[in-house]
């Protein structure tokens, strides 16, 4: 349980004069669920963009399974087993729900450049997509256009898109963002189902403390582009510094349940 799957070494990202991530080192252990929390502007999403390759770091390295992937583009990291969901819902709006997921399955197959056969004659991709939709509970909506899904449905579709790629490690950027609170337990259940499916590592940025404390094995707290603290959920919730900079602020946020 102590083998590192993903590692960030002294990552730094500057946008012009703004330092979004100052110096972050994190080790993600295989098979764990690791949450990254921190106040707005702490650099969590930037860190995610560095981990998945959307941004290139100003300094530092990203290591996946012992391999330096700092210069590997986004699409190739997917082929190395890294899937990512987005904070702002990021789907293919005018394609069907099934097609959204089927594309993700196809991306990892070997028939992407076959242009004289019909896409729907490749049954394995459709099967994979249907399985993923089953897991997140969207199977009944498979043939609707993705943009007619309610917000919660789109968040689930995000999950199904990653699942169809069958990644070893899932980067989930605020999976509950903008969700009505009564939908959150269902989503926790879905993420739980993914964890139980075995072997999956989940890295998650999340603001909802219920979710974080419920399903995390480890928590990293970020503040102003740096790691403030790291530990098990019980350690973090008892950490005095964390309480002052982060949990303290969070208690004032509206809509939080406790």
């Amino acid at each position: 349980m102590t083998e590192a799957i993903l590692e960030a070494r002294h990552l730094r990202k500057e946008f012009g004069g703004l330092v979004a991530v100052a110096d972050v080192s994190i080790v993600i252990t295989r098979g764990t669920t690791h949450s990254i929390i921190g106040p707005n502007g702490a650099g969590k999403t930037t860190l995610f963009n560095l981990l998945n390759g959307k941004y290139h770091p100003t300094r530092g390295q990203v290591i996946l399974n012992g391999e330096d992937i700092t210069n590997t583009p986004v699409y190739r990291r997917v082929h190395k087993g890294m899937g990512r969901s987005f904070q702002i819902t990021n789907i293919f709006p005018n394609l069907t729900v099934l097609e959204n997921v089927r594309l993700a399955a196809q991306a990892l197959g070997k028939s992407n450049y076959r242009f004289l056969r019909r896409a729907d004659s490749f049954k394995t991709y459709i099967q994979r997509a249907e399985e993923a939709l089953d897991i997140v509970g969207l199977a009944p909506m498979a043939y609707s256009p993705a943009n007619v899904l309610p917000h919660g449905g789109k968040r689930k579709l995000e999950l199904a898109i990653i699942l169809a790629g069958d990644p070893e490690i899932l980067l989930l950027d605020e999976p509950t963002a903008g969700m009505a609170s009564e939908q959150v337990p269902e989503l926790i259940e879905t993420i739980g189902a993914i964890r139980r499916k075995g072997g999956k590592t989940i890295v998650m940025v999340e603001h909802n403390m219920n979710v974080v404390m419920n399903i995390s094995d480890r928590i990293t707290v970020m503040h102003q582009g740096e790691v403030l603290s790291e530990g098990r959920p019980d350690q973090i919730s008892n950490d005095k510094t964390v309480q002052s900079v982060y949990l303290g602020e969070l208690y004032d946020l509206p809509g939080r349940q406790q």
Partner: protein
Amino acid sequence: MTPPRNSLMQTLRENWLPAAVMLFLILFPFIVGALTDSSPMGVARGDRMVMRGESVRWQSVLIEVFILGILAMSYNLIFGFTGVISFGHALFFGLGGYILGMFLEYTGMDTGLAMVLGVVVGVAAAGIVGLIVGFVSLRLRGVYFTIFTLAVAEMCYIFFSRWQVTNAEDGFTIGSLPAWLDPTQSRLNFYYIALALFAFTYLFIRRLVNSPTGAVFKAIRENEDRAQAVGFNTLNYKLISIALAGMLAASAGMLQVILNKKVGPEVLGVSYTVDPLLMTIIGGIGTFNGPILGSAGLHLLDVFFRDATITIGETSIQIANLWGLLLGSGFILVVIIFPLGIIGTWQRWRLKARGRIAKAARPDPSMNPKTEP
């Protein structure tokens, strides 16, 4: 997604409209011939045929529709299905025309051989130019890419309007065509060749867009970032789309120079970018039939009204002088009434109507009490 096709009859039933249109186009020269009492082959004078008569005239009109249709369909592949807006499509059209023309007139080869080589080299060159332009410029996003393609096409236009070898602005005429292809010797042969290429382009694009590769094109159009995050090297797919569209546009340009028997810098002009763009938008972006409807509609209107005059009292107005104005106003109207193009908006309406019907037809359990115990 449609269920698997298992029989020719089923394929025909699902595609009755394109099949009917194809049949009509095959018979068209003879239909016009019968209606106007003219021969589709032209008029015999001594031992050769002269290209006169209504049937032959209308064959030319339709050949122009086919050329514009191929050009618009190829443009729609990039613009409508891959979501990349290029303003340099005339580059491919003109390049195809120039390369074929130069093979026929400047190499001194046997015309048959020059024809084959010209087509092969012209199409290949268009594909390669597409790859190069795309590779250099596709890193630019959105409007910067569009401006870049416009600049490249205009550079090419200026080059060929100054280049002495091809007679600069005057261009050159094509005199050495194989007899079977020469539109001044047999318009009907050329009509069927153009029709075959038109049908091929339609079928090819349909097949391509419904394939796994085409699925990625549409994914890029919908959300390129997401397509990358799902694991596609989107640059490769955009390059494939541009290269294939460029090759199809080059073949349209070849038909154009054969029809006119002349090559000049006008084939590189910006109108061969703007026309397919307008035709695609009016007909329906990202639909298979839209560009065809757009090109046929615009070109036929142009032909009908080109020589028309309206006489109101003392003043008579030549429509030709107003053509640009009419086209512009018509375009604005179409875009307002049919925001997705004629075919696209019609499909949307039909989907909506179906949704409503499906809802209304859903049985209400309370209205259906059980009569049997």
